[in-house]
């Protein structure tokens, strides 16, 4: 094939790069930015399917502050993050440390870790729902077989147990995921460092605190940030397992807002999801600040 060399207009800087970016920018503008801005706008309106749309300023936001349901779901969401994220990261780190050793069956173990993550969360939640089931559930069966309980427990019936019933599936699904990320970080640590430490007679706990953890810190911080943001918007397992119950005790902010959208109250739903966004943003900024501060301090 014959082509004119070099002198093509395409190689000159100019508008050309934007043609390559256009599909990306268009999709993001239409299906992410526009909906977010739309939600932001709607949050200052009364906007229900039945009574139409009218501007009401900050009324939704002020209403949220006086709404017990909002405070309940805010408390639950923060507690959920506070309990599930550390569990996920610690368990994930444990799995990663295990897989970082030269094990004969490492590939097999690594595949096992991918499975909980690959199964759709809403689907595995159905299995968890059955595990917690009062009559047929695996949880009651195991505990009764071990003689730990005499009568079956209604796991989804009390606030505290229902809380853990939605935490556990989330930990199950995301701890393995964290482990895979951590494992990549661990494998980037030069082996000589460990060998040197061993020559110096360091105990393995000392090696962990002095070498592994500091070198893994960037990955840990990224994982902490992403897991926190992700856990803040938890929705799938809660919708399926508890539906937010009992009595709203496990309603996350995502579910709280979603329920308003689903019932046609767009104004208040939009306002709640803006609160959720602002909380995620504030937490992210705090993390980034703290990470930078810690990096400067060392």
């Amino acid at each position: 094939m014959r082509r004119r060399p070099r002198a093509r207009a395409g190689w000159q800087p100019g508008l050309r790069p934007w043609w390559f970016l256009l599909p990306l920018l268009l999709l993001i503008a239409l299906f992410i930015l526009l909906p977010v801005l739309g939600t932001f706008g709607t949050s200052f309106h009364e906007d229900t399917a039945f009574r139409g749309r009218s501007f009401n300023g900050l009324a939704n936001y002020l209403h949220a502050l006086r709404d017990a349901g909002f405070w309940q779901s805010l408390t639950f969401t923060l507690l959920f993050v506070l309990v599930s994220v550390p569990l996920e990261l610690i368990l994930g780190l444990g799995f990663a440390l295990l897989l970082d050793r030269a094990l004969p069956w490492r590939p097999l173990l690594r595949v096992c870790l991918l499975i909980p993550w690959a199964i759709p969360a809403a689907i595995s939640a159905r299995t968890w729902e059955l595990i917690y089931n009062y009559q047929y559930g695996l949880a009651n069966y195991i505990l009764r077989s071990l003689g730990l309980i005499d009568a079956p427990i209604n796991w989804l019936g009390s606030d505290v147990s229902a809380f853990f019933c939605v935490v556990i599936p989330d930990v199950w699904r995301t701890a393995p995921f964290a482990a895979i990320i951590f494992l990549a970080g661990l494998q980037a640590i030069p082996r000589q460092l460990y060998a040197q430490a061993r020559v110096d007679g360091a105990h393995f706990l000392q090696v962990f605190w002095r070498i592994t953890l500091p070198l893994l810190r960037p990955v840990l911080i990224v994982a902490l940030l992403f897991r926190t943001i992700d856990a803040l918007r938890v929705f799938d397992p809660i919708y399926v397992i508890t539906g937010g119950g009992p009595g709203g005790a496990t309603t996350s902010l995502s579910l709280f807002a979603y329920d308003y959208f689903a019932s046609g109250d767009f104004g208040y739903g939009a306002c709640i999801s803006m609160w959720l966004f602002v909380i995620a943003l504030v937490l992210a900024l705090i993390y980034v600040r703290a990470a930078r501060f810690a990096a400067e301090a060392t």
Partner: protein
Amino acid sequence: MSEEVWRRLLTAAGALFLVLFSLAPFLFMLLVSASGRPDFLTESVPFSVTLEHYARVLAAAELHFPRYLLNSCVVSLAAAAAAVLVASLAAYALTRLPVPSKMALLFGVLALSMFPQVSLVGHLFKMMSALHWINTYQALILPYAAWVLPLSVWIMVSYFLQIPRDLDRAAQVDGCSHLQVLARVLLPVARPGLFAVFLLAFIFCFNEFMFALMLTRDAAARTVPVGIALFEGLHGETPWGTIMAASAVTTVPVVAVTVAFQRHIISGLTRGAVKG
């Protein structure tokens, strides 16, 4: 020596825990899906193997299950293909062309994943209703493609950065246009990356729940996660065998694909997260 023994024991126990932890719910799902009665654990009935739940899931018209599966596959394939295409074009511009404030653009795209899904879903519903797109494939494909783009772009950029510039310079000298350089040089070299992005995008779309829940109303338009989440019995009794069989029919292929292509998936995931 005895420390070494302890170490080995601990490692073995850890490995056993890992396997049980990640597989137990999946195995329980398979067990219930193939058992004649859901109460086999508590009643002293012998465990009987049956395929009736599977037959029901695949054949019963009122469950629409094959339709859910088809919907999920169409939507996820289309969205993943779109994401790969759009992300390759964008990654080409971001790594090979003079784009002003590249880093700002790249981090801006990443920051988009900060938005909770619920802050999009209300307005998306309004948009799709106005377009009369509720219950259509495009109502899910387009938001899905946009939703997986930040991750896709980051992974593609990381793959493209690894390809030596000499390769595309040589193609340029031969007179290739940008699109030709991308299609004939970069994409073939970055094929593992392309495949990783496609797989990840597919899995994310296949697993998505909230958009699909809000943007589909008809049973015939639902995706699998929504369909299974909403499965209820007719008479108040939850048909656990059917639900677990449907879950198994859906997850076994997903698990098989994950196992077969684990290398691609892990490399994609770690690029997306560690280097981000």
